[in-house]
């Protein structure tokens, strides 16, 4: 009886979250610096009616990719955060705990700060807007390979956590050195990158981002069972017959693809990856990944879309950096959840 009740509640919650995601997706396309009537937006999206080509381009080429990017970022960061919290059994773990964003920052810093003359010599323009994406990806891949190489040799998961943080700190140290030797305009470019951005992802970049995120998500679905077992501790998981190192390898690969891709295209976006899994746990009152993964997908999209709407500051000429908004929007939500539940749900 009780179980049936819970299942019905889960279904209702999922239904509501799906509706909310769709609603926010539409609102995100609706809001921008320019006020466009709702009817025009529908006409542009469906390709019917006589829509001014510039307005159509604003909707199809600018707002739609941005909304899709927000959903991708929300899903990817939340899932990798969830995976890291489970595998390290630490509620404060997030997508960047392995040093992935530090690796990406290092790649970008080397491009933006290290080789300023490369820009003017034309190397930058050969790859155009892809240059940043490629170096950020290379940076996070480098960290991933280091972590994987270590993780197949070392048993203790805490050692890997510490090594991940050390790799991250080492990358940050190099980034700091590069920043120290940079002039103002180079620094500004780099700082803007670290603030995150959803709007600079174009349709052709989405053609790469979407498949990457999907691959990462499929990998994460494969880890559902092993993550559930790992919650009980690695020793116990081993006694249950789980091949811990294989499972770890899969989880690390999935997280690196998810967090690495988003960081490459949007810059390091903080907070979402740590907070959203907790929102899922508190809402669904469960630790089962069969529930937590889909709920993190939806909640991540919702928080990200909402943050993007806020960052647009509808009606204003300028926007706020998305990274600040995710923190400012999300932190009160988390505080409210903590205070309401009296305790932070443990992992």
């Amino acid at each position, binding site marked *: 009886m009780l179980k049936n009740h819970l299942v019905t509640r889960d279904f209702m919650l999922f239904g509501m979250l799906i509706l909310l995601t769709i609603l926010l997706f539409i609102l995100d396309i609706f809001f*921008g*610096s*320019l006020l466009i009537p709702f009817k025009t937006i529908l006409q542009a999206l469906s390709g019917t009616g006589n829509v001014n*080509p*510039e307005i159509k*381009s*604003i909707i199809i*080429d*600018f*707002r739609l990719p941005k909304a899709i990017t927000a959903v991708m970022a929300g899903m990817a960061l939340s899932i990798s955060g969830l995976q890291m919290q489970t595998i390290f059994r630490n509620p404060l773990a997030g997508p960047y705990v392995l040093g992935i964003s530090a690796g990406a920052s290092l790649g970008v810093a080397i491009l933006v700060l290290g080789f*300023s*003359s490369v*820009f*003017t*010599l*034309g190397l*930058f*323009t050969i*790859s*155009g*807007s892809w240059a940043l994406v490629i170096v950020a990806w290379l940076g996070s891949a480098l960290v991933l390979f280091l972590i994987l190489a270590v993780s197949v040799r070392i048993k203790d998961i805490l050692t890997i956590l510490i090594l991940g943080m050390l790799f991250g700190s080492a990358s940050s140290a190099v980034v700091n050195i590069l920043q*120290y*030797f940079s*002039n*103002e305009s180079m620094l500004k*470019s780099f700082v*803007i*990158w670290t603030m995150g*951005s*959803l*709007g*600079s992802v*174009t*349709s*052709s970049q989405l053609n790469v981002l979407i498949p990457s995120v999907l691959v990462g998500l499929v990998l994460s679905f494969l880890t559902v069972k092993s993550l559930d077992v790992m919650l009980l501790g690695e020793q116990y998981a081993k006694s249950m017959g789980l091949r811990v190192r294989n499972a770890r390898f899969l989880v690390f690969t999935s997280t690196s693809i998810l967090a690495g891709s988003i960081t490459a295209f949007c*810059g390091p976006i903080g907070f979402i990856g740590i907070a959203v899994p907790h929102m899922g746990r508190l809402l669904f009152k469960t630790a089962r990944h069969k529930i937590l993964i889909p709920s993190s997908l939806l909640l991540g999209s919702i928080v990200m879309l909402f943050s993007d709407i806020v960052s*647009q500051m509808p009606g*204003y*000429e*300028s*926007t706020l950096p998305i990274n600040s908004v995710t923190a400012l929007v999300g932190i009160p939500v988390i505080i409210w959840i903590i205070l309401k539940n009296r305790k932070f749900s443990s992992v």
Partner: protein
Amino acid sequence: MKIQLLLIFFLIIGLHSCDNQPNKKNKADFNQYAHGFHIVQVGQITRLDVFNPWENARNFTYSYYLIPKSIAIPDSLVNRKIIRTPVEKVVVLSTTHIGFIEKLGFESSIIGVSGKDFVTNPTVRKGIEQGLVHDVGYDQNLNYELLLQMKPDLVMAYGIGSDVASHLSKMNDLNIPVVINAEYLEETPLGRAEWLIFTGSFYNQTEHAQLVFNKIVMEYDSLKSLVAKSSHKPIVLTGLPYKDNWWVPGGKSYMANMIADAGGDYLWKDNPSRESFVVSLESAIVKATQAELWINTGQTHSIQEIMESDERFKIIPSLQMKMVYNDNKQMNPTGGNEVWETGAANPQDLLRDLIHIFHPEINTTSEFHYYQKLN
């Protein structure tokens, strides 16, 4: 002797009155166009005041005493900021300063630069190659030991923010004669160029500098009057975004004034700011669709490169019509752009280029100096 003491007394009194009420109206009276400096000549000694020398500085004045090398420093001025003139060994911390010095014909006095790759002046570049001109670093990385070794008569600095004050006071502590040059804060092209007189004063060539400047004013004004009668003012878009941030010059900025003088209609001319500000990519694109011309597209050399930086720019009509002009015609092999070096000291050349872009029918020139049409 007594008279000289009396003069110095008045000089210092004058300084204090300036410290207390450096209001804008008074400053504007000193020069024709520039607001940022003021020269007072008393006997053989010149007092040079620089006002609010960085962005958002308020009620701030630096005073320098320019004392000829031929006379002794009066006791009453010993603790002031003193420059001995004429200067013979100069370190410049901005390439723009090179442009001003070159315009007056003293570029052989330059013994140090900041960022040697960005220098385009042939004399200075040759000096760098021969090891006679040194790179002293920049901002927090200034090589103070090298500066001390070089024993310059003058270090010309500039500051974006108030943090430059700490570099200046460090140089003062080390007895390095440093002055701050704030020409980049002037709102008008002629205001910036008037800093030629500021520059000339260190070489004891204020009058020569005044003549050079007067010639620039005449040329600038006659070019400006050519477009005054034009009924059509093309709408002008500037800049290139970084990610989804589009930084554009404020409506009262140097660039906005230059566009207006050249008979163009700047897209953000109603903005009240003299500093650059950021607009979102979407609102910039919406405005860009009205523009007939697109200028100053960053470091791009072709329309292809602009398209590669963001393929969505294809909806901008001026790009479709290939009406895109960038001010990077004169680049040196190491990435320096001549417009940053000589543009401020030669506003008439910049204006002539812009008029040629905005009003080709007027036929001011057959060839661009700084600009090029992108293909």
